[in-house]
């Protein structure tokens, strides 16, 4: 088995930044503020030799922990069969605690992995500093996170959409973006060309989302 990151060494090095270090599921994860990101990332690369940035993962915490179907208490009429779709809460202007970005780092020389977790700024649009100048591989990963989650990476030289269609509006992986999408393309026989129109399908309830304790 491979060696886990040396939590002690990390704590010593990053003590002055007052960083939270946690071990979960055999992963070492450190949480930092966006203001510290550039400094910490530079330190991790130069002092702890994390040469590779494997992935950048943007997460939208808007509906975290929401369920479609709560079956804790039976009523006099039994359990409800109907599945209520998750109600999207009013979007907070400040995006407080809504978006987080995870960075997966790998050190080839020390055979270690590390996860960096950063909550974005609370401004609209949410933003974090770009790491392109530290790891070149951040370029496309940041473009992807911008395209799909709408997170701005300050200092990125070429922050364009990457995966969605030319002229796409919205950020599809946000939790308030419908899985069906908003637009579909059809062939218009009168105009004799392919045109956009609002989607004609609606969401079907599938398997309801439930949260169960291990001992339920």
């Amino acid at each position: 088995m491979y060696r886990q990151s040396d939590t002690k060494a990390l704590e010593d090095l990053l003590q002055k930044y007052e960083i939270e270090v946690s071990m979960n599921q055999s992963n070492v994860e450190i949480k930092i503020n966006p203001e510290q990101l550039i400094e910490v990332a530079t330190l991790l690369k130069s002092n702890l030799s994390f040469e590779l940035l494997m992935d950048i993962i943007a997460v939208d915490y808007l509906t975290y922990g929401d369920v479609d179907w709560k079956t804790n208490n039976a009523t006099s009429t039994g359990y409800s069969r109907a599945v209520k779709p998750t109600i999207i809460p009013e979007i907070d202007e400040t995006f407080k605690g809504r978006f987080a970005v995870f960075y997966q780092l790998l050190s080839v020389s020390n055979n270690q992995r590390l996860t960096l977790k950063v909550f974005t700024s609370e401004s609209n649009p949410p933003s974090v500093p770009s790491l392109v100048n530290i790891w070149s591989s951040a370029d496309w990963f940041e473009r992807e996170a911008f395209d799909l989650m709408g997170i701005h990476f300050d200092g990125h030289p070429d922050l364009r959409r990457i995966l969605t269609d030319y002229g796409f509006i919205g950020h599809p992986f946000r939790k308030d973006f419908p899985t069906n999408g908003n637009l579909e393309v059809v062939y218009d026989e009168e105009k004799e060309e392919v045109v956009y129109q609002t989607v004609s399908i609606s969401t079907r309830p599938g398997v309801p989302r439930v949260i169960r304790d291990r001992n339920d």
Partner: protein
Amino acid sequence: MTESNLTLNFGPQHPAAHGVLRLIMEMDGEVITNLDPHIGLLHRGTEKLAEIKPFNHSIGYMDRMDYVSMMCCEHPYVLAIESLLEIEPPKRAQYIRVMYDEITRIMNHLLWLGCHGLDIGAMALFLYCFREREDLYDAYEAVSGARMHATYYRPGGVYRDLPDEMPKYKANKFISEKKVKKLNYNRAGSLLDFIEDFTNRFPSLVDEYETLLTDNRIWKQRTVDIGVVTPERAMQLGFTGPMLRGSGIEWDLRRNQSYEVYDELDFLIPVGVNGDCYDRYLVRVEEMRQSNLIIQQCIKWLRANPGPVMIEDHKYRAPKRDSMKHDMESLIYHFKHFTEGYSVPEGNTYKAIEHPKGEFGVFLLSDGANKPYRLKVRAPSFAHLAAIDEMSKGHMLADVVSIIGTLDIVFGEIDR
């Protein structure tokens, strides 16, 4: 006279683009000065779709990530779920997974070799490679029923044990008895016998490919010193797998961060020297030979050690049909398994395996529900394609085709 730069569009429907890649190339004469890949033409939103499905339903979607190495894409997803559930599959299941991972690696490298050769003008090789791939597809079919999208791995093991019998060809008005007999010569025994027959034949077949290419003057002219990446840049650009090893860095997750039973198996890790297309070709060809050795070791172990291939805990697997008939609890578990699935404890994890193309990782964030809260796939081709601009600058237009070939990209996983 002033020379003006030319902007050229390449793809998205170009046979050398390996799928739906569109390149906007700025050229000075025939030399590339700037290259901008446009991707996303195959974007299906798999990660978003996974959020509305119970965990097991998305295993089949993983096959469609990198559709030329299917089971390797299921593997990290299944590992991620297992890590959050804190379960471990039986050892036989781990050996089966390793064996199929290596079969998949050979399949992937054969496709890569055939298509890369075809792009640069070696037509015959393509036909040879696809001849061998056919046998491996049969191995897939025998175990899962599907030739491509197997959906064979499950959290807690694999769907079923290896079959004792291979499906056989039958004579009809198009195929004579004599021909059928010839086709069925290696299908008399079990699946393991069939795969063993393949592994016995395969090394000489790799020699055959190498006689066509390794010392071929045209092949060398098209690949040597093309797309050179230094070890420092390779790490900076997030390269993994043969792309990183081609640049001379000995890094293989099977060895360095061993998962399943790779630590019990003997194999070597080939490493390149110059980091050009030719070295990466040599690395991949040697990897096929090493995979063949791993498969042979797995066959030996699997023959000697029968046993369960799935954990017994009914929380994560459907109970056996006959226990359902007389056991109330099994019936309940069966119902819950297929209507609701299992809930995965809160937490996040990142699991990666050595996919034929590089590090294929799955980041899974669960809030305790029966569906993933966020699933993110780390596709090796995505990072590799991002470097195409840097690798092609200063090369001729024809070399871009060599570089696309050497990247070994598949759009199923780049666009997801």
